[in-house]
């Protein structure tokens, strides 16, 4: 091997600033998309378990539509497809206000919302129906029952798959580089282009993603333990 590593390309010139900006954009994009995805996921996941057919049907349509189209296509759809349909003025305004970021955020959030909703639905459906009956039998409305009993229990049960889905969301935010959102992967590619140092740039990107994801997984593991339901099978901790 006669390749000489030159790691200094990562902090000389503009590289450091690019990486930092990429990291911040990735975090911002992922965090906003995650909030959207969780909100949509809880809503759609819960609605798919209610008795009222039109609501169930609407939620099912959302899930089946969005999870069955590639994320990349969705990003293109929102970024290249939708704006030309809008009036000229709005188009101009959008492109002056980071249209690619918002298109990427929406695509990411809506796509992962559909996937998260299935995780939440499986959590809800693992709760015996009699729990719901017990809560409405006390005079709680269906909405209260979901808010106070069904969802709090379901959300505690699904922390591991929800962690998975959150990590996927963060990693999938890199797809937004295809619509020129200057996120982390975009910036590592830029460093590569400017310095012709692919291995260094991509190693930096890889490590940053790895650290980010490991941090999230660690936090979620803490959340899981903190909110564990007493008496359920646990990996660690004293027997209840």
């Amino acid at each position, binding site marked *: 091997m006669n390749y000489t590593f030159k790691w200094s390309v990562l902090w000389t010139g503009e590289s450091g600033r690019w990486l930092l900006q990429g990291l911040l954009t990735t975090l911002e994009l992922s965090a906003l998309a995650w909030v959207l995805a969780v909100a949509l996921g809880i809503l759609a996941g819960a609605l798919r378990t209610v008795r009222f057919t039109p609501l169930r049907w609407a939620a099912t349509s959302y899930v089946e539509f969005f999870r069955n189209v590639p994320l990349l296509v969705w990003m293109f759809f929102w970024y290249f497809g939708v704006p030309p349909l809008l009036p000229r003025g709005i188009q101009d305004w959008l492109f002056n206000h980071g249209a690619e970021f918002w298109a990427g955020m929406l695509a990411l959030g809506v796509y992962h919302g559909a996937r998260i909703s299935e995780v939440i639905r499986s959590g809800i459906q693992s709760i*015996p129906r*009699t*729990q719901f*009956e*017990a*809560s*409405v*039998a*006390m*005079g*709680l*409305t269906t909405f*209260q029952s979901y808010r*106070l*009993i069904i969802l*709090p*229990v379901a959300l*505690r049960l699904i922390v591991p798959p929800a962690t998975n889905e959150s990590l996927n969301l963060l990693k999938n935010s890199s797809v937004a580089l295809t619509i020129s959102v200057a996120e982390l992967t975009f910036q590592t590619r830029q460093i590569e282009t400017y310095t012709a140092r692919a291995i260094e740039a991509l190693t930096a990107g890889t490590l940053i993603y790895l650290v980010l994801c490991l941090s999230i997984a660690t936090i979620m593991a803490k959340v899981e333990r903190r*909110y564990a*339901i*007493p*008496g*359920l099978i646990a990996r660690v901790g004293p027997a*209840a």
Partner: protein
Amino acid sequence: MTAGEPAIVFRDADKWFGKLHVLRDINLAIAAGDVVVVCGPSGSGKSTLIRCVNGLERVQAGDVVVLGDSITKRGVNLPALRTRVGMVFQSFNLFPHMTALQNIMLAPMKVRKLARAEAEKTARALLERVGLREKADAYPANLSGGQQQRVAIARALAMQPKIMLFDEPTSALDPEMINEVLDVMTALAREGMTMMCVTHEMGFARRVAHRVVFMDEGQVVEEGTPQDFFAAPKSDRGKQFLSKILTH
């Protein structure tokens, strides 16, 4: 509800699960203060019957009137009705992410909008009443079946219901825990609570019930005082049922 009107009335009530005719032409009136035990072989429609009282199931023909309100009417306010009808389930159904105390405080705070301090005071008094004062902060998983069921009764009582429904409250319990639950139910009956209990505890029926309703295949086959029913059931099916459950 005006004085003298029954607390619960079934009028020509019918219900089907698909093709299965689970309740057939039920006519039944339960007076305020009555303790009624519903018994019968499994699949006879007992549970469905009492689940129709608080609208967990709907009858498809006829009417069910609870505390003066028809619950088959369109637009009936079920949550409001249910605050006046407590229910205890076979599988306890305590909420696993809440302590015993929180389980009891939930509905008073969220439905009756009681202040936390007031709800807590009532909840602690109820725990005391079911003999579980020291278990206030225990989670359901750390309580025995009998204790869970007593908390569940306290939880239902927290809404100060006029009627209590018991759907096989001791069927999921180990024998040594059955009595602690029956004792609480007996005390409740003595205080004049209107109670409808689906149970196989014939001793309880004999000692506490004012009336026994015997069901089979979705019908009320006979009803009467426990003395009459246990000593001399009028129907053949009643005789058969008793011979099966009382021989050992």
